[in-house]
Each structure stands twice: as C-alpha cells, then as structure tokens.
C-alpha cells in the first residue's frame, strides 16, 4: 500500500479506481520512513453485513441493505471502507466521494479547515472562491487562468485545506480535487476569500464579520464534536480578523474576474 503526504498528514491509501487519482495523487507520494498516521483501505464485496463488533459508520443504505460503510479503530488509525459493488452504477465516483469525506474528517481532526471552493494562486498567494456546488466557482477560477496565465496556477478545485501556522493562514492542496484533477501539492499563503453568487452586476463588496461568518459556516465541514467546533471557531476568528473576505455577484463574463482583481489588489 502506498503512503501519501497530504497537508502534513501521512495516509496509507489503497483504492481500486484510477479515474480521479491518476496523474494527481502521484505528487503526494511519500517514500519516507515514518509510519502512516492513518490507513484507508477500500474494499468491495457483494452484500455487506453490519459488523458485529468494533466501531463502524454506515454511509449509505437502501431497502435491500447496506450500500457502504466504514469500520475504524481508535483514533481512526486503520479505516476500512466497504462498498457493495452491486449497489452503485458508478463505483469510481462512490469510491472518490467516500474516501474524500473520510480524508476531510481526518484533516479536521488534525486541525485543518476544509473550505468548499476553488483555490487558485495569483503570484504565489491563494485566492479562494467559495460557494455551494454548481454556483460557478470553477468557471470563475478558469477566467483568472485565461486572463492572467503567467500569474495563475490552480491549487485545488473542491475542498482546499486551510491551516493557521506561524500566525498566517496557509492553503494546502489535496488529491481530492473534484472533477478536474487540477491541483498542486504545496502550502501557500492565503490572500483572500471571495464568496460567489450567480448574478449579473459583478459587484464586489467587502463582507462584515457577521456576514462573512455565515458564509464560512455554510461552506465548511460541520464539526460534530465540541473539540472540533472549538478548533473551527478559533480558525474562523483568526480568518475573520486577518483575511479580507469579499462577496461577488458574478456574471459569466471575464469582467467578473477583473472586478475581483481590482477589489483585492487595487488594480
């Protein structure tokens, strides 16, 4: 089983389908000596049974039975993802979604903040476009690529991971990059967050803390334990106090990107 170093976490990862991971996960390969922090192994079977002992969580059920579940031990060190191979028409996507979910939870436990969005780098600083799925973050990020090709690299197109280190906010890439497999294995300082809404005006407004907080809450992995809430809220506090956050009423024209660039950089 290969080990991968993603956002400072070493993950032993065994999966079946290459569709989402090939030409993507390789940059995260870890060949050092340290043991994995977590092992995630995906297994397939026809007809899953609910485990009789040990910790487990059911992901998906149908009338016929369990479609997918995970078993785990203390601290989620060893995780098995079980998928009923007859219960899904698109196994590669199911595999990607469940392993992605697990990875984000692990990242949250390691003190990282997953934020739903498309992160690009502009001259080595990250601008994160955040909005619920289907709003047009990727479309908007692509505009930046088109307008400023020498300045822009694509970091992560699904759930980039934020981390507060040395009193700065950094963004890590991860191989769970959504449909476009476009990401880089690096940690880069965060410049700004832009929450998008589909619109026509391209108006960019700087958000006040209480409005920005609402957007952050909606676009983050919701914690389920008190300690995780405390971490997340502390991170929100720091981000709200140190990172300019904007709202964009985004059209589909290139003007949308230009409007944001002007707001963020003043030109």
């Amino acid at each position, binding site marked *: 089983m290969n080990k991968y170093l993603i956002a400072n976490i070493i993950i032993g990862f065994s999966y079946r389908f290459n569709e989402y991971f090939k030409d993507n996960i390789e940059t995260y390969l870890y060949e050092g000596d340290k043991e994995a922090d977590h092992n995630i192994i995906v297994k397939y079977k026809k007809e899953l049974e609910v485990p009789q002992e040990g910790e487990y969580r059911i992901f998906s059920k149908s009338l016929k039975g369990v479609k997918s579940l995970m078993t785990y031990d203390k601290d989620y060190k060893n995780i098995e993802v079980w998928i009923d191979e007859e219960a899904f028409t698109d196994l590669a996507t199911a595999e990607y979604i469940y392993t992605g979910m697990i990875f984000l939870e692990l990242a949250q436990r390691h003190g990282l903040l997953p934020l739903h969005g498309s992160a690009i780098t502009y001259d080595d600083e990250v601008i994160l476009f955040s909005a619920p799925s289907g709003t047009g973050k990727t479309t908007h990020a692509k505009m930046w690529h088109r307008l400023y090709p020498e300045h822009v690299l694509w970091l992560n197109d699904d759930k980039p991971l934020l981390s507060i280190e040395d009193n700065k906010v950094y963004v890590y890439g991860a191989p769970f990059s959504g449909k476009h497999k476009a990401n880089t294995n690096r940690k880069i300082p965060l410049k700004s967050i832009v929450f998008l809404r589909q619109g026509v005006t391209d108006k960019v407004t700087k958000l006040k803390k*209480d409005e920005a*907080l609402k957007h952050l809450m909606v676009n983050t992995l*919701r*914690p*389920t334990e008190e300690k995780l*809430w405390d971490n997340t*809220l502390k991170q*929100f506090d720091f981000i709200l106090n140190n990172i300019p956050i904007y709202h964009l009423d985004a059209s589909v024209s290139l003007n949308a990107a230009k409007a944001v660039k002007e707001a963020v950089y003043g030109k």
Partner: protein
Amino acid sequence: MENNKYKVKDEYLLKEVAGEYIVVPVGKEAISFQGIINLNETSKLLFENLKEPKTINDLANILTNNYEVDFEIAKNDVVNFIKTLEENNILE
C-alpha cells in the same frame, strides 16, 4: 405552558466567535440540525439558564433581575424564545 419546565438538550453548546454568541450542535444533533443560532445578550442569558430545567416564570424573573424591563414584556420575550427553540427541536 405556564408550569412546564424547559431545558435545552445537552448536545447544544453555547460558543463565542468573532464577538458573537452562537449555539452549535454536537453528536447526533449535529447530523439533524444543520444551522447555527445567533444569540443576542438577552437570548444568551436565557440559553445559559436553560441548561437546567426552568419554567417560563423563572426565566422572566431572570430577565427582570438583569434588565430594566416589565415582567409581562420579559415573559413575552421568553415565550417567543422558547417557541423558537421548540420549533427547532432544541429542547428536551
């Protein structure tokens, strides 16, 4: 409603972020309740006191003890707050 005692579920926690008070769910409630609740000073005081069973009158008295407000108005505020909590399944 008068003599009933009300209490918030243990899985709802009062937290502070960016200078605001909010209520967040943990455990089972975290799966079913997808929102957060914003509290002002008054509702924060009520929420804190609802960690132990209280009647409407108990809570109205707490408000009148802390603020310059008529008992009837305080009671009205309490009833509205309790209704909101009930609607969102936050009370035991």
